[in-house]
């Protein structure tokens, strides 16, 4: 067998320099006329180890991590030429114990079945991995639309965009509404800070999304399809366009698809301008129609009156990716994973203070603790795990003591967070929870479309309170006022953005009220993040008397003689933190 060398060229890989790695290997292969086939693939999820190079030879599969151009020369030279794998750089292999074996082996890959395993720009490779087989089977076996919907219903698949609405049911509604035209829309407007699974899927396995949409179109009787993808995902859009072109060429899109009479369906891409609110389906539809992306009241739901007022079915990228697998493997196989009400797997984007930041796909029912500790490799720098933010700005913080919560829509909801699209931002002891709430609220404030009064103004008022609190100006009653505003905003907003915007604040108040109180009453930030709440003192033992802090202090609050320990005059100190960042001897103590 020929040795295959595959370079991961997802956005994460490219960002880490994978293009240079690829070019170097290509140059090497050509200049030295080496005998191996060089391939491209996309992200396999191990983003924290990019650039990744996979080598498959007679002996097995090896993934090398952190392969920069220089290391690439060494790996090719040793592994390909000398058949001597460089064990130090191997992060994963099925042959021996490698550092990331646990990361890979704990996952169940349904959605990510193709990501990192094939060239996303090749329909042949997709087809070789059972691509378009699901739709073909429907066509060949003449499986009726109702039966397809029944299968999806039975599988228990729920919307992976965050809502968790049963996908089969959604399809059923859209199918039930009679109309000359219907639409299928793929929501690829991934907007949560810290979430990137949709991008990875689109970059790594665009055909699966297309196939999922074709099956959905077949099931509901749609005539047109739209992929609403944010323009900030140029690579995803490029690969989608390639995939759509190839699918048309092979007759998966167009008229009488796969010989099914009157099954005419095509898809075009609508590039969104990156407004978070456009992830909300009614705003997304407005945006596709060329209007300002603002939500409207539901009902009517899109299934009844959606794009151009026609019945429309909108699913998220990850949801569509599950579809071909379910059709091919059966509802039961899918439902065998997960919990009673949450079936299958869920992809998470791990970010924050976690060692292995990247994409993981885990079966529903796994505990959050396991995701973070087993797959995520625990907290960076050995710090203490404090909380995890699930669901991005619409979600909430789950504290460490609830980390046995299982990944399941209802269990997560019970904590006040939401599953969301699968962003998982991990926080350690050095994270200030008030600051976190402020961060997410600042995001929603800026992303509010400005339509509903409560969301437009209310979130600003909440943010102002948080800013005050973190700026040493917290007042008694602030927590209550935050809660009051939060509940009213949730109750009185049209769309998910407003209805969930206060969640990060509410959950942090719920689980970390003492931190809020420390800020407001004691004027302290326990995590030592909020600068105006810190006291800067000089460690009299450590200080070398170098005078750097003294010279840089803009408030002239530091006094002292050369080679004598300095002192901070607390009356003059403005808590700007310059001394802390300038001190080379870690002599400034924050309390």
């Amino acid at each position: 067998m020929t040795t295959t060398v595959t370079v991961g060229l997802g956005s994460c890989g490219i960002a880490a320099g994978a293009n240079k790695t690829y070019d170097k290997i290509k140059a090497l292969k050509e200049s030295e006329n080496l005998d191996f086939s060089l391939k491209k693939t996309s992200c396999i999820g191990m983003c924290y180890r990019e650039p990744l190079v996979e080598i498959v030879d007679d002996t097995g599969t090896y993934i090398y991590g952190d392969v920069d151009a220089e290391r690439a020369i060494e790996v090719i030279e040793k592994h390909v030429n000398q058949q001597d794998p460089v064990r130090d750089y191997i992060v994963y292999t099925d042959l021996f114990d490698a550092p990331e074996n646990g990361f890979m082996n704990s996952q169940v890959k349904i959605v990510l079945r193709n990501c990192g395993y094939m060239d996303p720009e090749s329909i042949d490779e997709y087809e070789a991995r059972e691509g378009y087989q699901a739709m073909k089977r429907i066509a060949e076996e003449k499986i009726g639309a109702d039966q397809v919907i029944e299968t999806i219903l039975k599988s228990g698949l729920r919307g992976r965009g965050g809502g968790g609405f049963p996908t089969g049911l959604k399809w059923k509604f859209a199918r039930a509404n009679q109309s000359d035209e219907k639409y299928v829309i793929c929501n690829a407007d991934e907007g949560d800070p810290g979430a990137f699974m949709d991008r990875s899927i689109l970059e790594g396995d665009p055909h699966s999304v297309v196939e999922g949409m074709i099956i959905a179109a077949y099931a509901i009787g749609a005539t047109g399809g739209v992929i609403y993808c944010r323009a900030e995902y140029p690579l995803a859009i490029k690969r989608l366009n390639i995939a759509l072109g190839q699918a048309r060429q092979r007759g998966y899109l167009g008229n009488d698809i796969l010989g099914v009479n009157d099954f005419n369906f095509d898809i075009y891409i609508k590039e969104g301008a990156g407004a978070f609110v456009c992830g909300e389906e009614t705003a997304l539809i407005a945006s596709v129609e060329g209007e300002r992306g603002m939500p409207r009241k539901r009902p009517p739901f899109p299934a009844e009156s959606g794009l151009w007022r026609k019945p429309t079915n909108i699913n998220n990228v990850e949801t569509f990716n599950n579809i071909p697998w379910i059709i091919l493997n059966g509802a039961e196989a899918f439902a065998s994973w997960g919990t009673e009400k949450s079936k299958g797997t869920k992809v998470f984007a791990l970010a924050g203070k976690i060692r292995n930041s990247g994409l993981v796909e885990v079966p529903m029912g796994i505990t959050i603790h396991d995701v973070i500790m087993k797959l995520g490799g625990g907290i960076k720098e050995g710090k203490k795990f404090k909380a995890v933010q699930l669901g991005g700005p619409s979600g909430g913080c789950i504290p460490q003591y609830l980390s046995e919560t299982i990944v399941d829509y209802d269990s997560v909801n019970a904590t006040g967070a939401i599953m969301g699209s699968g962003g998982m931002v991990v926080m350690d002891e050095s994270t200030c929870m008030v600051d976190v709430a402020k961060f997410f609220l600042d995001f929603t404030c800026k992303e509010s479309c400005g339509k509903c009064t409560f969301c437009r103004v209310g979130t600003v008022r909440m943010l102002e309170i948080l800013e005050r609190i973190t700026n040493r100006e917290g007042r008694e009653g602030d927590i209550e006022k935050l809660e009051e505003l939060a509940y009213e905003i949730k109750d009185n907003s049209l769309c998910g953005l407003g209805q969930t915007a206060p969640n990060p604040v509410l959950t942090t108040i719920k689980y970390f009220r003492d931190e809020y109180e420390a800020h407001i009453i004691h004027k302290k930030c326990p995590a030592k993040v909020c600068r105006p709440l810190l006291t800067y003192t000089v460690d009299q033992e450590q200080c070398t008397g170098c005078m750097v802090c003294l010279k840089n202090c803009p408030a002239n609050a530091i006094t002292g003689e050369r080679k004598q320990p300095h002192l901070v005059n607390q009356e003059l100190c403005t808590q700007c933190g310059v001394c802390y960042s300038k001190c080379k001897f870690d002599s400034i103590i924050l309390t």
Partner: protein
Amino acid sequence: MSDQYLNIILDGKIVKGNPGETILQLATRNGIEIPTLCNDERLEPYSSCFVCVVEVEGMRGHQPSCSTRLTEGMKISTYNESIRKSRKMALELMLSNHYADCLGPCTQTCPAGVDVQGYISLIEKGNYSDAIALIKETNPLPAICGRVCVRPCETECRRNLLDEGAPVGIDYLKRFAADWDLASKDKFVPDIQPSTGKKVAVIGAGPGGLSVGYFMQVQGHQVDIFEAATQPGGWLRYGIPEYRLPNDILDQEVKNITDLGVQIFYNKKLGQNLSYKEITGKYDATILTIGSQIGTGVGCEGDDAGNVYSGIDFLKNMEMTGQRYDFSGKTIAVVGGGNTAMDCCRTSIRCHADKVYVIYRRTEKEMPANPIEIHESKLEGVEYMFLTLPKRVNKNAKGEVETVTCIRMELGEPDASGRRRPVPVEGSEFDIRVDYILAAIGQKTDVNFIDDINTNTSAGELKINKWGDIDADRHTLQTGIPSVFAAGDGVTGPATIIEAIAQARIASHSAHQCLMGEEITPAGKPFTSKRENFKKQVKEDYAGTFVNQLREEMPVLEADQRMNFDEVELGYAGEEVALHETQRCLECGCNAFFDCDLQQYSTDYNADQKGYAGAYKEYQVDFRHPYIEIDNNKCILCSRCVRICREVVGANALGLVNRGFETFVAPSMGEALQDSDCESCGMCISTCPTGAISENMLFKPGPVRTTQAETICNYCSIGCSLSLNHLNGFVMNVSGTPGQVNEDGNICRFSRFGYAYLNDRSRITSPMKRINGTFEKITFEQAFQIIHEKIMAVDPDENAFFAGARLTNEEMYLIQKLARAGAKTGNIGSFHYLNRGDGYRMDESLNASFGEIGQASRIYLVGSEINMDNAVAGFMVSNARTKGNVPVVLVTTKEESAMAHKVDQIIQVKSYYYFIKAVNHYLLANKLENALFLRDRVDGLSEYRDQMSTEDFAAQLDKAGVTEEVVKAFAEQYNNELNGIILFSEKEVSGNGSIALMNLAMISGKLGKSANGLIVLKEKNNAQGLFDMGISRNYGVGGRSLTDQAYMKCLMEAWKVNTIPGPVGECLKVNLSQGKVRNIFIFGEDPVGCEITGSYRKLIEQIPFKVVQDYFMTDTALAADLVLPASFPAEIGGTFSNTQKVILEFDQVLPSRPEMDSIHQLINILKSFGLNGLAGREDVFSEIIRLLPQTDEDAPAEKLALIYTHDDNSNRSFNYGCDYIVKRFEEDFEERMQE
């Protein structure tokens, strides 16, 4: 679930809902009021304000009722504590970013809340009596206050912030209006409510008592005032010297109050010669307005010396005795720094004192007296000893004051009042020699009647508070005795007149409630948004927007002319001065004050602007559009303006910019509104729930409360209902009202902005005759006599009568009656249609109605700039297009049509006539006609076909300027269209073009079918009336032919005449140009001013005798020999026939400016010909009805006819529908848009 209705539980009651209905609509139908800001029934539900939220069982959170549609079994709560809380918070969040003023600081500051901005607006318009009416709603003593008020309003006036540093002369303006009203023959008298039979006793006839008298009497109670002194006024008379407030002015204002029925009994002092026992037996309520009568002494050692008086006693004594003191050679020391001190020192000067000192313990800056008083006193020679305190009065042998020992003071730390506390300088004592000391330090309330009251009542107890004043509830001014109220200085301690008036109003309000048996609650204070709630206002906030203008100073007596008690301030010199001063008002308060929903709901929900204070946005007001101003500070982002512009107008001229908190409304692409696709229709103004988008008015809008006068628009022929919102005839603005045609109440730019003429004072009001080149007034009788003589002096057919297309049917009818029955001529016509053929007469039958536009499957606009000329019909078309996706095709000769962006297809042609003719030719040649329809309903097909076949199709195409493909595509598309409606405008399409379109509608078989066929858009409001009222040489009333002998007989009977001229062969234009006309009568048309060709001036000028009736001196009127004044339609009432032959009736809603209105002028002229029997417009209308053909429902439909025309006849001679009013607005509009 029933198909018919849904079962809903609404607030616990089972009600029936209609499928598709929203909760808001259901609630409204069931009489439940739900507040909403973002909803407008004309628009698709939106839901942004969240003020309309309700609870629906089983749905999470609150639901916006405006967009939540009913479902079977829905259980809805429209109000509970949680809903109230949310609504209030929604309002408070909006208000927290509403950097705007509801009212100006002047009104906000005035203790009595006098609507300053409102009365300044009325003074600007010269409506002084209305200004006084407005002032007297809150202040019954404007002439007095206009002289002596302490003017807190002026201190707060934002004009102070601009360079000139002087406030608007608010008080002087008030005085100006008040003096004008006092001097006027028909001065303002308030409406008095029907008598309640209740009686009120008022103790004291000072400003408080007089005000109570006014307020309570107006409400229908009998007020009797008991006054201890011999004359009314209290301190107004006995405290304020005459050089500031002449007794004459005081007496006049008192008389205005007693004229209402208020009685004043003098020499009645409660507790002395009047007992509460008498009062309580006779009166239902008592109001104590006793003032603060006791002066405080100097308060130092020796102040019991002779010639030491309290200042007020000094002043009072002089007024009571009528004796002026003689201070010749004396030195007077006045102690104190308030207005009483000023009165004392300036009076002392007038009493010829040698030297007058004012001794004040602080500096001039701290003096509470009016700066103007200090200034004048210095001019008059008063000397000031600041930072000085009398320590001891030293007596001479007679025990009189000889010297006074004073001590120097210096200012220390500020005290509770914020003023720096004066501290004695040790060892700085000095003596001054004085003859008199007048202590103007303070006053106390004399409450020695309290025992009398308390012993004579068992209902409660009248108490005294710790300052020695009457104890009354702060909010209601009710005392411990429920039927006794108190107001003024007696409650507050010595204060100002305006405060006493303010209190009088509160006490009157409470006493009224008491008398009516109602619960006594303070009058609710409306919510007011204030810029000061956000930040202190500084010069920079105004300097860029407003120009400087110096204050009109008050003319005063020269200083050397003041050794008397003549009034020092002389009043503004004239109206121009007052007008000029009004221009300095910055109009801080909001135009929308009286109809702002946000303000109303904020009041209802007791919202607090500072409840959620935080960051706010500050925007420059966009004044760039000449008629529409956008103030984003007031915007609540309901997007109604944006949406109405898109959904109804179809212009899409407004949009939202930015996101979230940064969002604001702006013209699309950030250009000025007039550079966008804005059509200046003002629909945005009509929908704005606040004052964010409003009319940019050329006058001070006030705002003031107006009367709504509903009428029909007299611009185009749609016939929209509108409301002239006026105050005694001055139209402040115009709004649309739902009418027969404009069911949504939509109106266009003409109606909304074209009202300036209604306020134009240069009206013709009486007949005028040209004598030696100038016009001189004559009487109506003289005018009618001249007309009669002139008519009788010539052959009947040497007379010609013209009636304009804007006149009412009644006027038109009378004009043709005058011609036919009076002058015996058939020379009757309208310049509007002159020389344009008979085509337009025929375009009126079997047309589609406006209501059917929405049901069309495709709409065709032929030569219609419908968005500019007939915009309300245009809204219907745009609405069908945006809401119903009905495609619109425009056929136009214009290269750049204003409709281009509002249609789906444009067919550009060179000639409408030839284009349509070619279409007809194509249809017939290809046998595509609707043969069935033509066979059953239409005559003349074969002749038409024959004629058409002789024509060269290629030549038609050439003249139409299109290819055969275009004609083919249009013809086939229209022919096959299920519901094709063509709208065309007479302004653009010729008479023969109109006939061609009728032919097309017949050939395609669409005429008369529902939602099919033609809609004609006539140019003028009553152009149709011309055809219906017999303004024609060949047709009479009802369009009946004068060759119809039965009709002629009927006419003669109705008019009681023996002969009536038959049809006239020659066109009137030919008659005119051949010099056959010797007398011409032109009613309501301006052919000279509106002509396109330039020949009419000559044609008219050469006629020996010309009569013109119009509102203003038009170019035609200027060429006349006799001019008659015309009445606006709203001044006479009557009917118009709109372009769809709907007769729209309207009432007289404005007083007629001419002494005799147009109708009666015509009736009187008819009388001079012995044609009697008509008394007014109702008689005229009945006569018209009798002459109209009776419609017979069962009669077989009359056959239609295809009419072949050879060539086009585009002979338009006049612009503007030959109407001066249209011309005036269009020219003004163009000019303002150009600026």
